[in-house]
């Protein structure tokens, strides 16, 4: 989803992933852990996230290890809650992985 001035007022729930900010010709990428984006009628947009870090603050070794660990947990999970937690881990690590390699 792209937001330009004049965007229709929106409330969007964000999935773990990359948010790209363009300031003139400067482009900065942030990885957002999850959260919401509010686009207001006066063309102000707020992004609310518990963690939003520049993509180059992420350590790709830790991401790879985590992805392998949670993929394995997903395979061996038994209760619904364990499956959900493992799935969340897989989703977040995969998103970080794409952010680093994309």
């Amino acid at each position, binding site marked *: 989803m792209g937001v330009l001035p004049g965007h229709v007022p929106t409330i969007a729930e964000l999935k773990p992933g990359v948010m790209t900010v363009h300031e003139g010709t400067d482009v900065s990428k942030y990885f957002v*852990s*999850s959260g919401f984006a509010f686009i207001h009628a006066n063309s102000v947009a707020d992004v609310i996230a518990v963690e939003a870090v520049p993509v180059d603050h992420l350590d790709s070794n830790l991401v790879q290890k985590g992805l392998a660990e949670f993929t394995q947990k997903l395979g061996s999970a038994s209760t619904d809650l364990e499956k959900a937690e493992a799935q969340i881990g897989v989703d977040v690590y995969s998103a970080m992985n794409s952010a680093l390699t994309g």
Partner: protein
Amino acid sequence: MASTAAVPFWRSAGMTYISYSNICANIVRNCLKEPHKSDAIAREKVHFTVTKWSEGKPEKPSKIPTLNHQSSVSIRLDLAGVSCAGVGLS
């Protein structure tokens, strides 16, 4: 008339949005490079001060120190007669 919107997998497993969001945030925090990682972990340390009330009067407050934010999200307090005051951020 029930709505047919799809429920996210974590909600159907009994998790709330806030737990989901905090789990995601913890995962991201653990994948940071130093020094950002220690900064983030230190920033997110919380403790709770709980005051039980009886007959309209507060009793002596007690602290619940938490090691990480994720465990604090799963604290469920019996809210009848308890006030949770002064969430401290170190």
